[in-house]
């Protein structure tokens, strides 16, 4: 019954229709703002409910894509409207639909100006994110992938902090420069194969020389998105200046576009090049893990610290992916989902205290736990999940990545583990400085305790992080089939290349 509905298109375009609907709201300024908030919350909430149908109808044992939709777009040119999900894209779709209503809730009070425009930007952003994960056509994927920049640019630039203009421009131009190089590669692939259909492109084997160039082009784009060292510098700026909800979505979903791209395109389409370049990726990732962890230690701004920790965590992800082992990729996937939830919650943690004292300086706080006990619990839980405490989702991802890294190279595993220690250091230290100790500043005394709305945002994330930590199989079972297919493509083409030589 579910199969009869174009459910992926519904999930993708529902928020866009919500955005169009918002344009129709008429009335006084404050009424419009309040209505816009409610409509957006309902639309994104409903989108999440519809996306749950994907989870229910999804059969992890079936190989290949499910809920496939095909329609003609440009007949005769090999470019078409093609959507579908497998075990790799499905968790990301749910992550997007899950985080967006929470992000809307998070900006309920803190956004006061141009509320309607803000909500429209978020709804458009949600459509673009989901569309990108469900596209099975390269051109469609690229449309969504790059169109994400438009609402995000506006969100950072209009509702951001003091240096928002600089941050918005840096974010946009950096990411665009990466994407356009991928565009040239997509053109080359389209010319070579004659179609932009992703399943067909995956089955096609590109020549070794061509793979190298294509891999580098895609790397340029995904490395910026992930972000990998040394092209990560846009991220701290964008995060610091973005409004809380913008940071939540940026860290929660947008950073995953790079990792998703590696698993969906780079590995199965350019297996030889992936293997060839994996030492390079390891080197870049290890530098990212260790260097950005050290940088995070030195930060005095909470948001910047968490932003750098994101770079470090995404370093684990890229290491996991390029171990080209089942554990490594599964770990990377798990880490991405976990980081999506945890970092979104951590950015919200910063947002909660920022709404009260309007500063993100760590030194302005101290002893907050005494005035906001419930908040302290959630913050601690998220902090520990970020560090990778057993029983949280963070642990599973890191463990699997380490196992995969060990298989690839003991040195990679060694440095990765070093990063884990550093990660624990800066997070625990952050927590101590902000939450524990005596109250130094007068203002901290007046901080309002956690509101119900804020509680309602923390609770679902906490439950899921805990659930994945205790029962990781619930997520892993969804993914393993699809990951195995990726591994098979990589190894089989490796064998055939050896046979050719």
């Amino acid at each position, binding site marked *: 019954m579910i199969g009869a509905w174009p459910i992926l298109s519904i999930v993708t375009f529902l928020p866009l229709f919500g955005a169009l609907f918002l344009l129709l709201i008429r009335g006084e300024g404050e009424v419009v703002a309040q209505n816009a908030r409610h409509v957006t919350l309902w639309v994104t909430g409903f989108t999440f409910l519809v996306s749950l149908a994907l989870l229910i109808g999804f059969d992890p044992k079936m190989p290949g894509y499910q809920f496939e939709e095909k329609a003609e777009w440009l007949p*005769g040119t090999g470019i078409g409207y093609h959507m579908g999900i497998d075990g790799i894209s499905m968790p990301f779709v749910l992550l997007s639909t899950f985080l967006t209503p929470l992000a809307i809730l998070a900006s309920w009070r803190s956004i006061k100006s141009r509320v309607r425009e803000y909500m429209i930007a978020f709804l458009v952003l949600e459509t673009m994110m989901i569309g990108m994960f469900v596209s099975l056509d390269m051109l469609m994927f690229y449309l969504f992938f*790059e169109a994400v920049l438009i609402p995000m640019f*506006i969100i950072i630039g209009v509702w951001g902090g003091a240096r*928002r203009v600089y941050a*918005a421009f840096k974010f946009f131009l950096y990411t665009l420069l990466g994407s356009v190089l991928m565009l*040239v590669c997509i053109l080359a692939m389209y010319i070579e194969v004659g179609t932009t259909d992703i399943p067909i492109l995956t089955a096609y084997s590109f020549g070794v020389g061509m793979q190298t160039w294509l891999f580098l082009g895609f790397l340029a784009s995904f490395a910026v998105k992930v972000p990998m060292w040394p092209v990560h510098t846009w991220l701290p700026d964008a995060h610091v200046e973005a409004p809380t909800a913008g940071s939540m979505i940026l860290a929660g979903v947008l950073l995953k576009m790079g990792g998703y791209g590696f698993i969906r395109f780079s590995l199965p389409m350019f297996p030889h090049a992936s293997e060839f370049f994996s030492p390079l990726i390891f080197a870049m990732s290890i530098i990212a893990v260790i260097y950005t962890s050290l940088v995070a230690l030195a930060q005095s701004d909470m948001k910047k610290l968490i932003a750098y920790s994101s770079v470090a965590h995404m370093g684990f992800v890229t290491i996991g992916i390029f171990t080209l082992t089942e554990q490594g990729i599964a770990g990377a996937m798990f880490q991405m989902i976990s980081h999506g939830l945890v970092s979104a919650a951590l950015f919200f943690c910063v947002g909660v205290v920022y709404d009260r004292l309007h500063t993100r300086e760590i030194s302005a706080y101290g002893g907050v736990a005494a005035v906001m006990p419930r908040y302290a619990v959630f913050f601690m839980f998220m902090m520990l999940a970020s560090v990778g405490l057993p029983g949280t989702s963070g642990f599973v991802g890191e463990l699997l990545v380490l196992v995969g890294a060990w298989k690839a190279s003991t040195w990679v595993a060694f440095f990765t583990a070093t990063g884990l220690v550093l990660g624990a250091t800066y997070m625990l230290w952050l927590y101590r400085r902000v939450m524990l100790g005596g109250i130094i500043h007068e203002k901290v005394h007046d901080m309002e305790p956690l509101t119900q709305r804020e509680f309602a945002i923390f609770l679902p994330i906490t439950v899921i992080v805990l659930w994945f930590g205790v029962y990781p199989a619930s997520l892993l079972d969804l993914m393993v089939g699809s990951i195995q297919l990726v591994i098979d493509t990589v190894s089989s083409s490796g064998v055939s290349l050896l046979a050719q030589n």
Partner: protein
Amino acid sequence: MAFQLTDIIPALPEIFLSGLALLLVLVAAFGGEGIVNARRVTRLSLVGIAVALFLLVQDDMIRPFAFGGMFAADYFALYMKALVLVGTFAALLLSLRPEGDDGINKPEFALLVLLALVGMMLMISADNLLALYMGIELQSLPLYVVAAMRTNSLRSSEAGLKYFLLGALSSGMLLYGASLVYGTCGATDFASIAASLGTGESPIAFVVGMVFMISGLAFKVSAAPFHMWTPDVYEGSPTPVTALFAIAPKVAAMALLMRLTYGAFGQIADQWSQVLVALSVASMVVGALGAIMQTDIKRMMAYSSIAHMGYALAGLASGTAAGAAGVMIYMTGYVFMGAGTFAIILLMRRDGQAATKISDLKGFSQTHPLLAFGLLVMMFSMAGIPPLAGFFGKWYVFLAAVQADLVPLAVIGVVMSVVGAFYYLRIIRLMYFEDTDVPLDTQTPAVNKLVLGVSMAVILMFFAGLSGMLTATETATVALMGEPR
């Protein structure tokens, strides 16, 4: 090859417009001075353009050869003429405005534009060196006059003079090149020129002639390094005239360049391709870098148009059918982006005075939310961000370039599009990220809304019409190059 009466049929739109222009001379002369008569002439011209468009799309208009091979009314001509007609219609519509401070509220403005329009249509249909030159001159001379139309302004007179001098120079180059081509090929019609060319080495005189002709046309499309007149003319001319310059003549000149390279010199694509690659790279770089420092929005649009021509030439440089189709798709988006953008530039006024500084757009989204959104769409489209029209234009021209093994050209192109994105984003920044104490006037004439609305619809829904456009451009390309070999 003698003249037949039926030859008139495919040229009916041109004949109709010329007749109307002559009639309007009388209306302009005897209808009285002043704004009322000027508006009357403009309205009649708009009706005339609509009728011409209607005549153009009639079925029996398609006739590859008319007037002894002078005049090609094939499907390619139809497509490009439709673009030129729509673009000119939009520009003339935008010139209908209440204020009269830019000197174009004279009856002769619209009729000069009509004559230039006939010239553009003749350029598109030119299938012979003589017809080519006549078309170019008929298009250029009225435009020189309208550029200088604001007689009480030194800048406008300077713009007109500059445009005239450099235009005359380019015509001279074109004519000299044409004489060399005629001298070596012994024919003036494109089909005979094509037939006389072997695939092997061409005589040096011919190559010189060809390069001169392409350079002359590069002036007309304002491709770097022949772009120097563009910023000054754009800035100095009355704004509605700038809008016209930005939209229509570029399309006509590009069509002529396509017909010349693909039609007459189609056999030796490898020889002119490198010239176009150089022009394309220079234009993309000059357009992207030159716009960054501009403070006047009209000058910025001039550099933007140089960059756009660079992208279009990247498709043309491929010398393939895919390239021709790419250029046509690119120019389609270009016409509507230009019309939409100028619909807003034209209503940028403060206390009734035209405001053309980019910084005047500060806080525009607060005072004019819908218009600001319109300009946002135009800017993202010009920057080539999907899913807007500008992206698909770039997709198809770079597709052709990569297909023709011009990968470095495509890479330079996409990197320059990132540089270009910077100044388009700057406009969005001023509109959305900043506030202002001195807002622009909120009065919005209905024609501006109409032009902007239509352009936005086209730009936003470009992907939906793309499939039909691909079919149309394919047919047009076959008309241009002959059946695929």
